[in-house]
């Protein structure tokens, strides 16, 4: 059994195809780094994080995608995946502020269950080659990558998010 949290958390499978990490990616919500599988409540992730992208060549551009594959409910993900953020043309060695935010950041607001929020980093072939979808729901990272010639991801991370007053994915008693 693989020990990669992305595989164990079924991110590779539900959202991504197996890939090899080649670019360092650091995501920080108010100086708290995102560790794979850690938990953040909606209040902590309401505003966009700081995303530091590694790499060496400033000329290479990256695209960052943030999706929720468990929308609206992990047991019944009919809206898989829900696009929360899409930033393109991020130069290597910089952060997401230097890119183009073509789908603005929307903080997660899960209603039911514990959702995985996945960040994916792709390397672009050139600048201005990536286009935004019309709607956020039923997004497909795989198709998006294929349509925009992004290939396999170069980095990914995920965290878990449940509603503010949630207690581990249990149903709300009314």
């Amino acid at each position: 059994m693989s020990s990669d949290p992305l595989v164990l958390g079924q991110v590779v499978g539900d959202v991504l195809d197996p890939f090899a990490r080649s670019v360092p990616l650091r995501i920080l919500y108010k100086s708290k780094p995102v560790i794979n599988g850690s938990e953040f409540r909606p209040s902590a992730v309401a505003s966009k994080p700081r995303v530091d992208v590694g790499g060496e060549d400033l000329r290479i551009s990256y695209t960052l995608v943030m999706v929720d594959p468990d929308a609206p409910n992990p047991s019944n993900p009919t809206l898989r995946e829900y696009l929360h953020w899409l930033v393109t043309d991020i130069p290597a060695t910089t952060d997401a502020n230097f890119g183009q935010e073509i789908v603005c950041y929307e903080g997660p607001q899960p209603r039911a269950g514990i959702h995985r929020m996945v960040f994916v980093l792709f390397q672009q072939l050139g600048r201005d080659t990536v286009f935004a979808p019309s709607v956020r729901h039923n997004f497909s990272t795989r198709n998006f990558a294929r349509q925009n010639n992004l290939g396999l991801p170069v980095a990914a991370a995920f965290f878990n998010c449940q509603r503010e007053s949630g207690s581990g994915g249990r149903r709300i008693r009314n």
Partner: protein
Amino acid sequence: MWSSNKESSGSGGGSGSGGGSSSRSSSSREVCSSSNSFLFSKAPNRRTMEEVWKDINYTTKLHDQERSNSRLPINLSSSSSSSCNTTPYAGLRLRGMILQDFLAGPLNQPISKPTQLGPPLASIPPTVLSLRSSLEFNFDARSHQDINAQEASTTSTVTATASPVSSIHLFSFCPNKRMPESPQGAIGGEGSNKRMIRNRESAARSRARKQAYTNGLELEVAHLLQENAKLKKQHDELCLAMTAQIPTKNTLRRSSSSPF
């Protein structure tokens, strides 16, 4: 899941009941193989799950027609071997109940005594007797001594308690692994079946989440330790370089001075 179950039990069925039953981990599988070998030697080993469920549907129709006539107390040991080869359905019907009725029992029919449910699955084709026997083993065995004696020898490794349990509990205990998909509209217990599947998926997700979290933490710890070691090394080197340079700082040097 079930069809692979069939094939494994089919291959193990001929090899001997005792060995087959004790080596399996899941009780339903071992009972299936043991009951297979016990009750009929060359029975349909290669039956697919679809055929089995078709038979159940068929027996539902049969049973509905002959319900009033079928109050036969069956001695399974004598009738099974003979009946299974000829009329597998009629001979194995016990007390007018079949699987569907039993499963529908908790929801539709008020069942007075647990023993009534005891021989419910008799009309099911023999390959599904695994369900029945594991269910039956859970009941108070007072009224089914021959059956249980027979079953007990073959299901010795079934870890069932002898205390009487509620039918719903049995229904959930019966298949240790995932239940097969129910046929369309045949079973009243489908609702709780789906719930069980959903619950299992949720539990699996929870386990995966937990494991992913601990692995993520371990990786982070390893990464941080590495970084820490690297930084310490760098720090030591810098300190060394600094102490090596300090003596040279205090030496006087000639530099150009002004003419006056």
